[in-house]
């Protein structure tokens, strides 16, 4: 399918005016920027899940009845005790939460990380394709500039 797309766009490339080429280039640049932003959001989500895994490991090592402070509001903490360091509550999405132990929680994070990696790879591919197409456009634009320069040189020579 991408070859078809390339052919569809390659054929009219020669016939497009420089303005149209510039327009397409602008559009592509905006798209690439948006997609790169999404890619960085993916990286943020990645690091959050990795952090959760580290915290889960630490929880495993925390002894029972450990003293802790529980946040009630953003500025109010209440002293408490860690009753069950093994049990964690996982937000599955759409309002569902499941009580699991730290091992299962870590596996959950792994699965999510896997999904994220797959989506990130797809996104990187698309960004690369668009960048390649932009390079082609730039080459085409340079050709036009050279053509115009050649014509101008010829005209100057004729005047002599």
């Amino acid at each position, binding site marked *: 399918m991408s070859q078809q797309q390339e052919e569809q766009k390659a054929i009219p490339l020669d016939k497009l005016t420089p303005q149209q080429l510039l327009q397409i280039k602008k559009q592509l640049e905006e798209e690439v920027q948006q997609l790169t932003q999404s890619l960085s959001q993916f990286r943020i989500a990645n690091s959050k899940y990795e952090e959760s895994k580290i915290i889960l490991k630490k929880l495993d090592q925390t002894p029972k009845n450990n003293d802790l402070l529980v946040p009630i509001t953003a500025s109010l903490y209440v002293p408490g005790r860690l009753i069950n360091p093994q049990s964690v*509550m996982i937000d*599955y*999405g*759409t*309002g*569902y*939460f*499941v*009580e*699991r132990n730290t091992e299962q929680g870590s596996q*959950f994070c792994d*699965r999510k990380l896997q*999904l994220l990696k797959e989506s990130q790879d797809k996104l990187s591919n698309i960004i690369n394709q668009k960048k390649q197409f932009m390079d082609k456009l730039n080459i085409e634009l340079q050709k036009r500039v050279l053509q115009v320069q050649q014509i101008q040189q010829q005209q100057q020579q004729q005047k002599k």
Partner: protein
Amino acid sequence: MAEQVQMLQSKIEDESKLLQTLQREMQKYVEGRQKLIEQSHENEMVKKELDLLEPDAKVYKLIASVLVQQTLQESKENVSKRLDFIGKEFKKVEDLIKENTNKQITKKTSVQKMQEQLYQIVQAYQQSLNK
């Protein structure tokens, strides 16, 4: 001639306004469709995770700041129902989008025709003046 021109111009204006309303409608439909896709993805993921759970796993549902315990069975059914509902809504929106596209095409062709008519009338009048 002047009457004809005025009539055509006001018709073109009316049809163009209708076209604009159609386009705004279309935008809403497309936004709604996008939301449905997102919701469907999220629910699919939850369904997959729920399927991995053992039957006695403790599942809670967030109902207005309160976590209420549910059975795994109930939750799975709930998520399936939601997915079905989203599927139906999605189909509805797709049909509406199709209808809207067709209506836009008919409107655009009719506006184009009227503009051509207008052009021809003005041309004919100018030619008659030149004679």
